[in-house]
């Protein structure tokens, strides 16, 4: 029989352990966050003084103080556009099928298993696939189109998963009400399900684009050039039909590749340029992620079914 004192000591000991474990958890979190902070501060201290207007309007150069990221940010922008254009319709359509149409059979479970597995496939193998398939088999060349398609396929699972979550959160009464009014399945999806889940879909889109903008390895694999001193063909023509898509076939570089290129040179002045590019890149990803988090919390609060 334990005495009262033993019991108290026992409780005290366990409370102490409890406290230590909470402390360990706090320290683990702090370690991660302090590292993130160190990364941001270190990058900003080196990079921010280098950022000025010329840095955005100059082409890369062999003189570090003249070099800029014009071709890199234009390239990133064009590729983002292409990626969004191919990944969003495909991803949303796939999610709608899986949530609204798919019956429980081996085909749909194969697709689901596959999407889960795609998330674990290293991004560089997407680049190898694109090099073999898009560049050499389909002869699309080492172009903006190839890069956009590659990144589009890479972020497809993210869009599918987030869209499915958004669709799943819409209660069945909405669907039933729509059917009761005589709407067909597609009309229900088109006029009710998709508009109501647009907030969640947008969150997924932003997160996937912020992932694509920082992605480097698959683009190196398909043969992004590291030194480009020209811009893609202008998408606007002076004559009919005023728009052209020649820029899709132009070679490209993007900000992370420009940064990698400067980082792999020995001169410290180029490292400063790399840091400045990193600041721009980090700022964009942080803004996009912050925006996504804000959107998610806003929609969660607003939607009370």
């Amino acid at each position, binding site marked *: 029989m334990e005495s009262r004192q033993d019991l108290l000591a026992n409780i005290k000991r*366990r409370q102490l*352990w*409890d406290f230590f*474990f*909470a402390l360990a958890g*706090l320290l*683990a*979190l702090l370690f*991660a*966050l302090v*590292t*993130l902070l160190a*990364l941001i501060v*270190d*990058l900003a201290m*080196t990079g921010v003084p280098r950022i000025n207007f010329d840095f955005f309007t100059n082409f890369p150069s062999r003189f570090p103080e003249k070099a800029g990221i014009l071709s890199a940010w234009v390239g990133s922008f064009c590729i983002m556009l292409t990626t969004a254009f191919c990944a969003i319709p495909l991803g949303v359509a*796939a999610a709608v*099928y899986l949530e609204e*149409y798919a019956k429980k059979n081996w085909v*749909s479970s194969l*697709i689901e298993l*596959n999407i889960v*597995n*795609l998330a*674990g*496939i*290293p*991004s*560089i*193998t997407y*680049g*190898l*696939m694109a090099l*073999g*398939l898009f560049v050499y088999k389909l002869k699309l060349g080492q172009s903006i189109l190839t890069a956009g398609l590659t990144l589009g396929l890479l972020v*497809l*699972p993210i869009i*599918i998963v987030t869209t499915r979550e958004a669709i799943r959160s819409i209660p069945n009464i909405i669907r039933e009400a729509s059917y009761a009014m005589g709407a067909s*399945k*597609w009309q229900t999806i088109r006029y009710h399900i998709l508009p109501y889940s647009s907030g969640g879909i947008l969150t997924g889109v932003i997160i996937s684009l912020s992932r694509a*903008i*920082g*992605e*480097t*390895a698959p683009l*190196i*694999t*398909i*043969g992004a050039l*590291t030194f480009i001193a020209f811009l893609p063909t202008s998408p606007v023509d002076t004559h009919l039909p005023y728009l052209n898509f020649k820029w899709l076939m132009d070679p490209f570089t993007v900000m*992370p590749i420009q*940064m*990698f290129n400067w*980082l792999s040179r020995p001169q410290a002045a180029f490292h400063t340029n*790399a840091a400045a590019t*990193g600041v721009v*890149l*980090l700022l964009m*990803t*942080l803004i996009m992620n912050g925006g996504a988090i804000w959107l998610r919390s806003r929609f969660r609060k607003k939607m009370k079914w």
Partner: protein
Amino acid sequence: MRRLKERLIEGALFLAAASSVFVTLGIVGILITESIPFFEHVSIWDFLTDREWTPLFENAHYGILPLLCGTFLTTIIALIIAIPLGTVAAAFLSEYVRPNVREVLKPVLELLAAVPTVVYGYFALLFVTPLLQKVFPSMGGFNVLSAGLVMGVMIIPYISSLSEDAMRAVPGHLREASFAVGASRMQTAFRVVIPAAFSGITSAYILGISRALGETMVVAIAAGMQPNLTLNPLEPSATITAFIVQVSLGDLPHGSIGYQSIYVAGLSLLCLTLCFNVIGLWLRKKFQEKE
């Protein structure tokens, strides 16, 4: 008419969903077909046992071992950081922290996963390596240790986020039962919540391992690109992914042995990740049977 339109739409949506399967088939198919010519050149035995990997040199050797060695070394260092810290952080977030604080902390932690990997490479090369050189003065500018450490921090959110989801999915009455018999929060976390969430935590670990194996830019920037059969983390080394980057940066004629070698490297990488996924699946099954 309307029925036909509905059918057409359903068909189109199905094709979109099936496209993810085509992506997988595309990746596996291309990697295999482009690797086959390589093995007509090099025997599989040489590939698996030769201790040098120099496919671009005059006197070419095609042994995957140095690349595997570099890959495993960086992965293990990363996991030594990421698994304990990620799990403890997950348990802390799920069991100790109030929900509104967690709603803030979790997204902030996930920002670690959002930082572009090339920025982590910068951090490893120009911040962590100089810091480590103060401890190990003999260490060179390129080394496996700083790449692995930074990669570990990068992977923490993958592990903590999924583990935390799994732990929070454990029903509250299990916790209440544990508290009711007098267990502390820590005892509840270790003896009730973590075992109950184990299958979810396993998937988190597997995702972390896949990330670490396939991570490219950090190792390409900070660990050097020199295939090196060593277990010393202070030395430079090349991983499978770093080798692919190195070759891709050069001018690569289609069909050359260099071109084929990156596909062989990519295929090896895919097999490795596949292995770990299968092990993870098996672990989960085994555990779920016990329940």
